[in-house]
């Protein structure tokens, strides 16, 4: 293990944890990542030394809290090169916000929203609900035999499309979609673009402005930040087309019994007491991530994923999904024809190894892959080659023994 990796691991208190008598091997990073100590400490410190409600008060704690909360936004603006950063409770709420605040007011019956078969439920269900409400048509770009998006069919599906929503990087396959190409096709047809970047942001720097898209959704908890917070990035032009989603304190300018006027900035979409401690934690996570060579780590982790995929493919009865080509994220989904994923996951857990099983909130993709669910190992910054070897040999012996 390199010194850098040891230093990274030292930052994560949970790695000291034992599960069933073994050191925890945490390979469920696509579900949520662990948190470095600086992130936990930042929140503790917030609660111990400056907790107060933000925005509407002049006392010192309120000033400091407001500063801390807004400095996370400032940090995210820089990190993502984005002008408008609306805080939400996560990717899911961010996409729902886009559907309600923009979709409902700017799309009409018959307009097409283009999705893909590779989407997470969070990028399907909000649009199905919008479709039922205002009659937009949903169209899905199929996943091809090789588990990538069928770009020919995408190109052929653009008629009437007003909004294209797709996942930057699949949480099941690890596949990074041809983002630039899809954006350019969409823009050529005058469609807006929303990108679900939940799985992309932990692994690479995203430059929102230069992507030339309209919305980007992500969650803090998948990039070393706390639960309960995420954001929707919005292009300045599209921002002006959005109507309020939820109503309440902090999002208004004035309220009378007859009606209300709203804030003009991001607060317009952040009703109620915001996620203050969460913003403080996310801010610290961004600062921590900014010291990591993400490009280097991305390649290291992708190599681990390729190695894992190869070794698994060598096991009789094993099917491995995904291509693990350059740019893909370090996620390996697999299934054995004799050992049920749930049994495999429980047996691995008996050795302290955490993998996820199930449909990974991507049932349409599961259907396409012809399975009910998969096992999924997803790697992150603190994972080591040794941990991977332990998992692989444990899987090999489980298959040998129980199939």
């Amino acid at each position, binding site marked *: 293990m390199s010194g850098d990796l040891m230093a990274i691991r030292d930052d994560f208190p949970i790695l000291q944890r034992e599960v069933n008598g073994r050191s925890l091997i945490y390979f469920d990073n696509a579900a949520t990542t662990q948190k470095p100590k600086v992130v936990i400490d930042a929140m503790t410190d917030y609660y111990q030394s400056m907790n107060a409600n933000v925005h509407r008060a002049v006392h010192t704690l309120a000033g400091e809290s407001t500063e801390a909360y807004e400095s996370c936004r400032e940090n995210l603006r820089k990190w993502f090169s984005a002008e408008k950063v609306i805080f939400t409770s996560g990717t899911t709420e961010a996409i729902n916000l886009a559907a309600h605040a923009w979709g409902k007011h700017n799309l009409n019956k018959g307009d097409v929203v283009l999705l893909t078969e590779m989407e997470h439920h969070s990028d399907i269900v909000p649009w199905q609900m919008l479709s039922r409400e205002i009659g937009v048509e949903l169209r899905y770009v199929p996943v091809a035999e090789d588990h990538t998006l069928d770009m020919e069919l995408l190109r052929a599906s653009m008629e009437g499309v007003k909004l294209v929503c797709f996942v930057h990087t699949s949480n099941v396959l690890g596949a990074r979609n041809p983002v630039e190409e899809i954006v350019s096709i969409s823009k050529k047809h005058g469609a807006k673009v929303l990108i679900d970047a939940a799985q992309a942001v932990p692994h690479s720097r995203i430059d929102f402005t230069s992507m030339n898209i309209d919305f980007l959704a992500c969650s803090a908890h998948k990039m070393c930040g706390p639960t309960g917070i995420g954001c929707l990035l919005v292009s300045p032009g599209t921002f002006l087309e959005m109507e309020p989603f939820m109503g309440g304190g902090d999002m208004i300018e004035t309220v009378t019994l007859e009606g209300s006027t709203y804030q003009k900035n991001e607060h317009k979409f952040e009703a109620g007491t915001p996620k203050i401690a969460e913003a403080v934690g996310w801010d610290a996570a961004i600062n921590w991530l900014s010291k990591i060579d993400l490009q280097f780590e991305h390649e290291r982790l992708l190599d681990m994923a390729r190695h894992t995929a190869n070794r698994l493919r060598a096991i009789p009865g094993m099917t491995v999904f995904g291509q693990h080509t350059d740019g893909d994220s370090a996620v390996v989904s697999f299934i054995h024809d004799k050992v*049920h994923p*749930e*049994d495999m996951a429980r*047996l691995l857990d*008996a050795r302290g190894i955490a993998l996820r*099983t*199930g449909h990974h909130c991507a049932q349409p993709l599961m259907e396409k892959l012809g399975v009910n669910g998969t096992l999924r190992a997803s790697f992150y910054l603190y994972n080591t080659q040794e941990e991977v070897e332990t998992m692989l040999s444990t899987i090999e012996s489980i298959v040998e023994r129980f199939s």
Partner: protein
Amino acid sequence: MNDTPSLEELVEEFSEIDDAMERLELLMDFADEVDELTLDEWSDDNLVRGCQSQAHIVVENREGLVHTRAAADAKIVQGLMGILSVVMNGKSPAFVLSLTPQFAIDMGILNSLTPSRSNGFRTMFDMIQSEVKEKF
């Protein structure tokens, strides 16, 4: 019926095993104790909802005594059903209703009883008890 182990004996047998994987192996052995539903008996009616794996369970009133039949695609889940079968089959409704699911924790085979999509045990257990209340 005399040679079926008591719940206490089962708890002891499991909890004596130190290694978590060995406990799961033993649990999987209990999959064979299930009076198995055939595939064509699997239905929405007897589905254990909220399970990640496919799991089905029915309770029969056999001359006033409880008899469960069940099946699951995951072997560990069927093993849990096996434990329930050994403990409950041929017993009085009163006895079955007196049980709590806590024994799965004491056995060291589950660390949570919260019904959730990853933990159908509690759901199975509750299903049996409510069917017992209905059918007896």
